[in-house]
């Protein structure tokens, strides 16, 4: 294997191991929110996009409806469509291979694929990261869910208070400029102000609509 390829394998395994640890907390939070071990594992296998999975179980755990959770998860998954656009010419996949590749289109695989100079290295990085992540993400989820399921009361470990920390950890890397920081503060304030007055589950959709309007209507479109 070329030095470039072994470097990619090393990075892919590193990302896989880190995400396996992160999946432990997903398994624990999901089980604490009231999902069964099977439901928790199904989310990691079928949804396989971290922020959406945490949002889904976070909304359910906080007493929201499963459909409010589903809508939030789908809105958070919209960014993966943009990753797909960047990856589609790079990967050159069709048919069944494209259907399989689609499940791997997430933050980490995109970052690994677009960071390469050679197209064949990009493809190798995408698949290596995808397989490593998928295996360790699902393994971590299963272990986290089984361990939490074995506890009689996960509240004793404070696990019911953990989802906001998970959301914060997912949010922080996206706040490196002034505009996203301002949007995050505004969204938090709007959500808290609206919460006592709007039906359960509508708060998050309202925030999504407002930020969508802001993005579409704001002036100075040549930013990126």
């Amino acid at each position, binding site marked *: 294997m070329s030095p470039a390829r072994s470097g990619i394998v090393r990075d892919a395994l590193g990302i896989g191991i*880190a995400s396996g640890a*992160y999946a432990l907390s997903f398994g624990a939070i999901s089980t604490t929110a009231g999902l069964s071990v099977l*439901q928790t594992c*199904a*989310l990691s296998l*079928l*949804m396989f*996009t971290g*922020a*959406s999975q945490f*949002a*889904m179980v976070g*909304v359910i755990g906080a*007493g929201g409806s*499963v*459909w409010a*959770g589903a809508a939030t*998860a789908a*809105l*958070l998954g*919209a*960014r993966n469509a943009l*990753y*797909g*656009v960047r*990856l*589609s*010419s790079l*990967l050159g996949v069709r048919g069944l291979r*494209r*259907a399989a590749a689609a499940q791997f289109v997430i933050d980490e695989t995109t970052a690994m694929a677009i960071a390469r100079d050679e197209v064949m290295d990009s493809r190798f990085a995408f698949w290596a990261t995808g397989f490593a992540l998928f295996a360790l993400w699902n393994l971590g989820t299963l272990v986290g869910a089984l361990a939490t399921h074995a506890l009689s009361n996960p509240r004793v*470990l*404070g696990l*019911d*208070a953990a989802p*906001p*920390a*998970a*959301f*914060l*950890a997912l*949010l*922080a890397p*996206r706040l490196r400029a002034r505009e*996203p920081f301002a*949007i*995050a503060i505004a*969204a*938090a304030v*709007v*959500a808290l102000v609206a919460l006592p007055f709007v039906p*359960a589950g509508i708060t*998050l959709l309202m925030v*999504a609509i*407002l*930020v*969508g309007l802001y*993005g579409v209507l704001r002036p100075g479109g*040549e930013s*990126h």
Partner: protein
Amino acid sequence: MLWAGLLTASAACYLLKLAGLSLPARLLQDARVQRTIPLVPIALLAALVATQTFSTGHHLVLDVRAAALGVAAIAVLLRAPFLVVVASAAATAALLRLL
């Protein structure tokens, strides 16, 4: 009901991934779409942090979850790994409840 929601949301997330790989690029390359979609997770994650820390049902509340979030924020600023951020928040809530 729970299964229906989980499977529907999973299907939606998969179709969004597949759409990016399959649709003609120009549909999603509109400048406004490109700059708006990345803002959605920022707003939603921030709203989730706020509502799940400071509310129960329709009521705004201040309890151990605020302290847990504060500890998580410090862990994030120190660039701690994800699991450490989550575990430190859970441990903070657990310890404060013992007091």
